[in-house]
């Protein structure tokens, strides 16, 4: 099935909870209401027509005014894929976890929580995965300022080359 047909099918099934479908050239996607993501995911997983049995890639993107979580679903039986998106506010982004439907979401959601600060409700073991446990802030956010030092180890190393300023006058 073509990507757009899949999204149309989901739209027909969920109606207004699918906010919009965009046909942008390389990969069309559907924006889903944050509250409905688990039902949509469960439907796409169990529906024999779609049979999306694998959450291939889940990434978080920080646009200046909102944070988006992008789900790339894929089906090994029908060999087709679809892209879902969820738009979250920047101050306290939180969405339900998809760990119940696809186990692979566990680690990917922990990474998004760690690097972007998106809180996944119902996640079995939501703690930082890549950064140290006591790290402050979320590095992949656009407004993240890297701390000068961490536990006394400086994170800044000026370049040893000194640029000559030859502006005589």
């Amino acid at each position, binding site marked *: 099935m073509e990507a757009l047909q899949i999204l149309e099918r989901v739209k027909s099934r969920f109606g207004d909870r699918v906010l919009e479908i965009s046909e942008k050239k390389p990969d069309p996607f559907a924006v889903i209401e944050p509250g409905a993501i688990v039902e949509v995911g469960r439907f796409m997983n169990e529906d024999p027509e779609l049979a999306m049995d694998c959450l291939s890639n889940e990434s978080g993107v920080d646009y200046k005014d909102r944070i988006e979580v992008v789900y790339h679903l894929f089906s090994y039986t029908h060999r087709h894929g679809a892209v879902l998106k969820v738009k979250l506010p920047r101050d306290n982004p939180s969405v339900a976890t998809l760990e119940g439907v696809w186990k692979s979401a566990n680690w990917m959601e922990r990474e998004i929580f760690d690097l972007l600060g998106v809180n996944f409700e119902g996640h079995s073991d939501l703690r930082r995965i890549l950064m140290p446990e006591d790290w402050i802030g979320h590095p992949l956010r656009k407004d993240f300022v890297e701390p000068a030092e961490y536990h006394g180890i400086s994170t800044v190393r000026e370049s040893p080359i000194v640029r000559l300023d*030859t502006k005589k006058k």
Partner: protein
Amino acid sequence: MIAVSEYVHNIKDTVSTIFEGMAVTASHFMRKPYTVQYPDRMPVRVQDTLPFRYRGILDVDLEICTGCLACERACPIDCIVIVADKDQQTRQLLLSQFDIDIAKCMYCGLCSEPCPTGAIHHTTEFEGADYSLESLIRRFVQNPVIAYKAKKGPETDPRIAPILNRGMAYLDQWAQPGGEKPVGEEPA
């Protein structure tokens, strides 16, 4: 209890596979070792055996450097620092600083790609160990020098011509975007 046949099969399997494995290792007794005795018992210096495109420590021929700062912009880690500004009286570009921090350089080759004359290029030298971090910054300009001005026709100055040819030969190695390059011709 596992069946007697499986019991015997296990023993036979173990013995035959160990027999095969020992035969393979025995055949290795009669083979020439593959390793070379770097650094001192080498028939020829390693640096000379490396291929032409080997990306070793950077080297700059200042005679043909036009001071266009293409390499400084291309370097993702900003480890090249060049100061080249127009001298008011003689209206000529003066190169007063050209430093490369080879400690930070990751030898990716992105700087030697855009250089118009092939001035900055990789050598096959890789032994960069040194006693002080300071000496890891290769300074190519001692006293300010006038930047090279590319002429229309072939290079006349006998001193600069061979260097320019070498530089252009190095550039030929790079695939020209879209250019049809016949396979197989290799500069001397």
